[in-house]
């Protein structure tokens, strides 16, 4: 398996991977490819953008990498059951969003039961999150409900259509519209201040 590290010299400068563009050609692999080859190809083109998507959702880069790696491993395991290999990228996005949701759910439970740290001792996770929330907009994004946050990230970072967001989140297009509108309304004061 030829490794194409995203930051390595062998990686192609794919500028489109900076956003999750809805380009079917980038998310599809030939149907006769085996799972190893498909994972390598999808990794070299989409790993970085998927990690960034997950990091915006879970607010932690290390956890985001684990989430994306889990998604790749799951896709490799279910490669034969993936009826349409053209949907590999969609499968990965959906898996990343679902796993990010699970991480957040688990984090809520952990935070509920964890002892309170001393106020002058910020945790390492807190430092990683703070790195992601230098922008007031992004920190305001944190206050949104998870579904609304997912809808905004997929819409404005991933540049995905409402139909794609609905497919990834497993909800209807109307629900996507509703989540997006409510989230934008909640963020409007912060966004106007930034503008």
């Amino acid at each position, binding site marked *: 398996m030829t490794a194409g*590290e995203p930051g*390595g010299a062998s990686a192609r400068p794919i500028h489109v991977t900076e956003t999750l563009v809805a380009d079917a050609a980038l998310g599809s692999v030939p149907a006769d490819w085996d799972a190893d080859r498909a994972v*390598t190809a999808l990794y070299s083109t989409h790993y970085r953008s998927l990690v960034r998507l997950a990091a915006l959702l879970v607010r932690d880069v290390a956890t*985001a990498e684990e989430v994306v*790696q889990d998604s790749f491993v799951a896709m490799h*395991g279910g490669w034969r059951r993936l009826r349409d290999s053209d949907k590999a990228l969609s499968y990965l996005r959906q898996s990343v969003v679902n796993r990010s949701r699970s991480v957040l759910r688990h984090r809520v439970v952990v935070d509920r039961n964890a002892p309170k740290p001393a106020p002058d001792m910020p945790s390492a996770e807190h430092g990683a999150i703070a790195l992601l929330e*230098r922008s007031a907009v992004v920190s305001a994004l944190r206050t949104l409900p998870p579904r609304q946050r997912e809808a905004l990230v997929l819409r*404005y970072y991933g540049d995905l259509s409402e139909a794609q967001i609905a497919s990834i989140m497993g909800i209807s297009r109307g629900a996507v519209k509703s989540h997006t509108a409510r989230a934008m309304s909640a963020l409007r004061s912060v966004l106007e201040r930034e503008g």
Partner: protein
Amino acid sequence: MTHLEPEDILRRALRETAGSIEPTPDGLSRIQARLSPPRPLFVAWLVAAWETVSQFVLLRLEFAMPRLEPMRATLVTWLDTALPTADRRLRPALGWLIAALAWLGRMVKPQAGEHGRPPRYGWVRPVVAMGVVVIVAVASGLAMSGLPSQIARDGLNVFSGSTNGSGGGGHSPGVTGGGKSYSPSSGTSSTSGTAPNPTANPSGSPKAKATTKATPSPTSPSSTSPSPTVSPTVSPSTGSPSPSPGDTGGSTPDPSPSGS
């Protein structure tokens, strides 16, 4: 300065934030390290179930250990007194088991105010009771299995004590009147008062085989199984008519302890 739409502001903020995120370059190697040949679904289910159950049990045990420790110590002490012939290696395990069952039974005991309706874990109590019965039966069986050797040892002690009038070690098994014990494996004497008693070793150990070899037995030369009844004959100074191993075998040995 141009006025930006809220959507553009959000898009720009998200991309700026995401642009500062760089994943570690070993992502593919980590993914490849985790890739393995797919297992059958049934095996995967079994493995997952086993991991879940084992983690649950280990967590529960870790939580319950401090509570069980006093009960375990008490039960081991009780077993020491109640089951003197049981195998010592089994006692701690039995103590742990009984303590765990007792704790389980206490845990599922119906609380006050629950009378009149079936308890939540009411089915556990009969199971616990049956488990206790099984454990007691096993422990009793172990105790009974050790009883014959205990009787034989006591018999030998009585035998040695009654014929050995001199010496402070008269109650030590196999201790002669001169304070020496006979070692059947080597055929030499030692001064240790706690020399192993051949009668207490019912298994076919080399020591027991040496005993039968040292005892001239023309009638059964091929017999290698030690018998407790043979043992008293190896005591050379008991005054019994049985020949000692040191004696030259002109006479037929008497395997039965006489004079007791």
